């Protein structure tokens, strides 16, 4: 039975590999006293060993090589998965970080907008009509424009010009003549 490569198993106690009794069975045995008696020590178990087909050295080597390749594949896939997982986690961390930055900037914007409204309202209140009028009258000595200061010009008549004071209006032809004579004088120089 134990021959060749399997001789090394001859000294093994196969009882160690037998299924252990469950506590339930042990308890039940105690209570009912009907449990099967334990096998006397030293007796050999009824074992059947499966014979493996004999392999050549080349075949064994080939098997080992395939096994190594398989292991390498698993390691490689694991590594790829690990890298992918890490990348994913890193990506998530980055997104989370950026998300927090966006939120923070949004908050800053909101605060800035509120501050803008507050200052605009303060400015509006400072330049209200009441304040402007009071400042103009009390600090600048200004007087509000009144109707009498508006002068209406009647354009319903013929085109004419009125010059205040004693200024005399020269006729247009005279002006033209003087301009031409001045130009001629300039050219003759």
């Amino acid at each position, binding site marked *: 039975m134990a021959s060749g490569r399997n001789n090394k198993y001859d000294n093994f106690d196969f009882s160690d590999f037998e299924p252990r009794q469950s506590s339930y069975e042990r308890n039940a045995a105690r209570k009912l006293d009907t449990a099967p008696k334990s096998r006397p020590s030293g007796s050999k178990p009824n074992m059947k060993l499966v014979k493996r087909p004999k392999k050549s050295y080349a075949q064994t080597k080939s098997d080992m090589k395939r096994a190594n390749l398989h292991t390498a594949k698993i390691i490689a896939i694991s590594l790829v998965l690990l890298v992918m997982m890490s990348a994913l986690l890193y990506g*998530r961390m980055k*997104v*989370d970080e950026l*998300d*927090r930055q966006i*939120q923070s900037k949004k908050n800053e914007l*909101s*605060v800035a*907008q*509120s*501050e*803008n*409204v*507050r200052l*605009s*309202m*303060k400015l*509006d*209140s400072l330049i*209200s*009509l*009441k304040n402007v009028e009071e400042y103009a*009258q*009390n600090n600048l*000595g200004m*007087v*509000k424009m*009144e*109707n*009498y*200061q508006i*002068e*209406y010009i009647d354009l319903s008549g013929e085109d004419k010009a009125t010059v*205040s*004071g004693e200024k005399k209006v020269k006729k247009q032809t005279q002006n033209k003549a003087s301009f031409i004579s001045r130009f001629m004088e300039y050219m003759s120089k």
Partner: protein
Amino acid sequence: MNSRSLKQLSVRATVALWIIFLAFAVCIGSLVRVAIIDGEEYKLKAEKNQLLDTKVSAGRGTIYDANMNVIAKSASAWLVYIVPSKIESDEQRKQIVSMLSETLKIDEETLTQKANRDSNYVKIAGEVEEEQKNKIQDYIKQETKKNKKSKINEIIGIDPDTKRYYPYSNFASTIIGFVNSDDEGTAGIEKKYNSELTGISGRIIAAKNARQSKMASEYETMFAAQEGSNLVLTINEVVQYYLEQSLNQAITDTGAKYAYGIVMDVDTGAILGMTSKPDFDLNSPNTVFSESVLEDLEKIENEEEKKKEKQNALFAQWRNRTISDTYEPGSVFKTVVVSAALEEGVVDLNTKYTCTGSIRVADRTQNCWKLGGHGTETLTEGLMNSCNPFFITIGQRLGKEKFYKYFEAFGFTEKTNIDLPAESVPVPDVTYHSLEKMGISELSSSSFGQTFQVSPIQMITAVSAIANGGKLMQPYIVDSILDTDGNVVKKTNPVVKRQVISEKTASTVAGMMEKVVSIGTGKNAYVAGYHVAGKTGTSEKLNHKGFYIASFAGFAPADNPEIAILIAIDEPEGAHGGGVVAAPIAGEILEKVLTYLNVEPQYEDSEMKNISSTTPQLVGKTVEQAKQIASNYKIKVIGGGKEVVSQTPAASSQIRTGGVIVLYTDETAAKQTVEVPDFNGMTMSQANSAANREGLNVRFSGTTNSSGVNAYKQSVEAGNKVEIGSVITVYFKTSVNVEDN
């Protein structure tokens, strides 16, 4: 295996199967309970545990005036609260109170009371601004740094809040209203248009991470907040400012309890200005501003009663009396009676009546306000004199059915439906006489505006109908509603309720009302260059004997009306006639508003005399030449030069002939100033002399074309220093023949 063992195995297998079956049944039962029966509850619990649901508040809309000036705007702010139950010692309590008091400007006593409460949440202040919030946060950081075991960050809490800004404080406060701590409109436009201004809150639903904060945006579902709409009012900042300025002054001058006024566009019914004084600061609506009311409150010892009275005072302060209060219109109502009578043909312009000072009505004698009587007068004169017996006769000729028909048609039996909250509702036989219960006495007294009440907004709407050719308009205050991008969502179109009187009748009555202002009881509302039409009114309060309301209602220009005005002075001290108290204020406002609206003045020859002459150009002339040219003026030369380098007033200014022109002959010469004299109570010639004595020019405003006129106001206050030669406008009014009742 023997049969016994097999049997045992079979029993055991059956028991085991049953156990497994029962276990499955329990599992399935639990599954059904969790998934179906209590499914919703567990779903919510799971969602709550896994999801972060954040409410995104919608910003409240902005309110603009007609010129797109911001009147109310919201921004985010902070709410500060404390958890008094976590305060560890009295010393800590004292420190917190002191810091909060200093930062938030709240008195320590109030804060100590709050900090002593045995509570887990006490609000300290809302609408806290960023700067104050930062100070509080710095304090929390410092305290935590000092003592790492300190629970200060659990004791003081800061939550987001919003703040509503009203930049112009009291400006149109009774119209705009304000919001409460929940950002809901409590009064005025803020209340009426609360749903439009509020918008719809949004939500952000996102997955929570281990730190209970939001996870990446790919798990986020966002329902964007819909911002509140913006409102554009018909209120014009400048018109409103003039109205408020004049009515504030009126309260100071007359000692009146209240003063209210409305300026309306006669063609559309748009309200350009509306105020009820005294009013309040929109930024602190819960503060009582009236000093007399505060004094009265201080006298109350019982805390409960004091609290109640303070609340009543606040309600009174927030009240928009132009729409919520009613008053007896008095003689102003005669314009409605004369319109009805002319429309029905019971009188015409040639109708004459002899007033003997009283008239017999049923078993009573009704006196005219002028006990001696007005004598024989035409219909126009009757209105100008505001003759009561004449109008009692007109009312009786009209009859109660026709009187009531026009009373109803002019809108006195219904609300105007202006888009403001708390408009008073006319109640038959309470605020006015119903047709069924109107006897000859009620008809007679109603004919001259007594024994019934109307609201100021009803009265000005009726007067506007006379001004615009007989159309009764629905007044409105919101011109348009805009979305956040400024697109018009809704535009208010003017609503003509009905044609009350014909255009011809309206034009005739407008002409009569112009006479009331030019030579009748309303002459203090006269404005040179503008044809003002109007009617004064004085009425004794029904429930407050011995106290009066003086009013004036009118429109301008009379030949092409643009704006209508109503001014009411409630319980003035001393003089209480509408012609003396209310008409000058209406005149001042009309002059300013019509100038602002670029309505061109058209002066009559008689008015031109009082206006002035145009100053000549004297700059560049020698002093001698200047004196020769301006021989009609008093010349004052400053400086040692020979040639005029500048002059005051400038060339082409209009001053009265004989006024002062100051000539400067030295560019380095300092401008001389003089103290403005007090013109109050002076006649026109006295004011002119006083001004000339000081080297000033004077311009006359108000009523200047009738007898008994005296100055009551001046453009530059007495005692102020102005440049020599300046023009001071002095306002005049008369107390002769302006009484009415």
